[in-house]
């Protein structure tokens, strides 16, 4: 929502650059407004309305009630699961950023030849469907998997480790792997945009390489970092395939709970309620990020 405000703030500027009647501005914005209304506002409204319904064995009971919200606050399980999902998503986001930044920096500032080829190589594994990429971790992390076999063979351990798969650890590990490109790309783009002369200028003015990095590179790549953080976080908070496949009982996330309401339990109104909670939680985190980095800079880098 916050980005909508800053996006429309660009409107008057455009109009000022090319003098046009005000009515034309409305026309220019109409397609975007229509798309947003159709594909964002309307589904949200449907979800919001549905959260006041109740599922019965005869189908949806459409008399409005607060039953779903009572259920939400009466059982601490839902709050705890949300907190756990937030914790996992934040951990995954931080890890993705920590790995992405050096990779993106290396690509944008240190590689001079074959950059496109290297970028393609980095992303080559991601052309494979991500369910398969997630499954691929099972023979790596399982009881008889590659990691256990190697550790057993080298005598580091004398019986297979169970802690590698079907828990929170494996969920985080696989999510970090799956979301890595969403971290690398925005950071790479923001670093690539930094004029090399700015780095020369800071060196010229007496800044050591580390000072140059802290005072010039890092602040100027902040929009890319924020974009990467938000993308990865939003993807992670809604994840349900990865926890389902490699999470086991302890690695379950909020997304699984929601998915169940639309699948096995067939309780759409309860699912809608849970979805709204998740959307609000994600929005709250994005709002926190937006307080540090203006969203206009993240999405409209000039």
């Amino acid at each position, binding site marked *: 929502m916050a980005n909508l405000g800053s996006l429309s703030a660009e409107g008057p500027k455009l109009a000022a650059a090319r003098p046009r009647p005000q009515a034309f501005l409305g026309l220019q914005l109409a397609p975007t407004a229509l798309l947003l209304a159709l594909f964002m506002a309307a589904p949200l409204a449907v979800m919001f309305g549905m959260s006041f319904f109740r599922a019965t064995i005869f189908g949806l009971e459409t008399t409005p009630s607060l039953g779903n919200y009572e259920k939400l606050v009466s059982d601490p399980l839902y709050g705890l699961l949300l907190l756990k999902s937030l914790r996992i998503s934040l951990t995954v986001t931080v890890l993705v950023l920590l790995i992405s930044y050096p990779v993106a920096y290396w690509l944008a500032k240190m590689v001079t030849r074959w950059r496109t080829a290297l970028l393609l190589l980095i992303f080559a594994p991601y052309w494979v469907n991500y369910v398969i990429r997630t499954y691929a971790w099972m023979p790596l992390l399982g009881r008889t998997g590659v990691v256990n076999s190697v550790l057993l063979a080298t005598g580091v351990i004398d019986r297979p480790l169970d802690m590698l798969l079907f828990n929170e650890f494996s969920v985080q590990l696989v999510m970090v792997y799956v979301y890595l490109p969403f971290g690398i790309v925005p950071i790479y783009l923001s670093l690539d945009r930094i004029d090399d002369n700015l780095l*020369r*200028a800071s060196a*010229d*003015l*007496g*800044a050591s390489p580390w000072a140059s990095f802290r005072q010039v590179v890092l602040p100027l790549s902040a929009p890319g970092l924020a974009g990467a953080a938000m993308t990865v976080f939003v993807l992670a908070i809604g994840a349900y395939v990865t926890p389902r496949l490699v999470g086991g009982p302890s690695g379950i996330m909020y997304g699984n709970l929601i998915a169940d309401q639309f699948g096995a339990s067939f309780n759409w109104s309860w699912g809608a309620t849970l979805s709204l909670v998740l959307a609000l939680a994600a929005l709250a985190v994005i709002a926190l990020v937006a307080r540090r980095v203006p969203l206009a800079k993240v999405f409209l880098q000039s």
Partner: protein
Amino acid sequence: MKLLRRPDLELIGIDKGFRGKQVLRRVSLEVQPGEFIAVLGPSGSGKSTLLKIAAGFEQPDSGTVRLQGEDVTAVPPYRRNINTVFQNYALFPHMSVFDNVAYGLRRKKVKPAEVTQRVGEALALVGLASFGPRQPETLSGGEQQRIALARALVNRPAVLLLDEPLSALDLKIRRRMQGELKRIHEEVGTTFLFVTHDQEEAVVLADRITVMRDGGLEQVGTAREIYDRPATPFVADFVGEMNWLRGQAEGGVARLADGNALHLPEGIAPPAGALRVGVRPERLRIAAVGATSGARENALAATITRITFQGPSTVVEARTETGEAIRCLCGPADVAGALLPGSAILCLWDAEATLVFDAAGAENGLTRKGELVE
């Protein structure tokens, strides 16, 4: 002025190649304290690389860089007492004007009170005293240029390097900034090394000009020396305009294509063989056919092909009897109303205005082997 004083910047025998291509070959240059020196050359002549080596952004393959007598060849840029004004200004977009200018002082841990004072002085020097709180993106090109200058000069560098600093500005602002640069140079007395491809800019601004070509120094001298006594046909063509005429020398006598003997400046004997004879357009004088030339004047018969009135001056283009095109820059007094395209005229010029190069190795009218014979 050259005597006794130690040069501020010495580049000694600098060689530099990139991926097998030689960009600089044995370039040596001394810059005297307080001097405003221009490195002039077309793009690809290596002048920007030379500046990067002086600043420390590039390492020479061989050679030495000395700053105020001290060998700084291996010293990284952030430990050199030298500052650069970049072609695109390279102001930090995420900092205010004040923070940009204060950046170098803060890296040197100068006390905040002194930072404020010196930044204020630097901004006043470039005439933008009230601009401290502004963001760079709100400034015009000329203003950004001045801030870049203030940001460099506030550090009181031994040498200030300027990399085509005016090339991104439009003509009018460029003219004004030229005057500003000159004034600031006189005010602070810092040594300026200025890289440009604009010969007019170099002539207007610099005490001395270094002309570069293909990674080598072609000539070093004052603007007047370079203009009046170019060392090579390349320099003659690059700085100002030149009429080139074919000639031939035999037994110490030079002749133009029409067979007439050529008067040369005192003490200059032409090399034997084919010659390239150069005369600046403004040194040519137009006279009526049959006019008598002075004892030390050269004369060439020609037919006017075009007359272009340019306000303060008039360009008369003509073709000689041997088919060579010449341009003559005339003042209002030189062009009588009778001159019309098709008129036969006599072009006269002083022996002292005659340049002679041997034509050996001449290619497409340009040669680096050609040498002024003195």
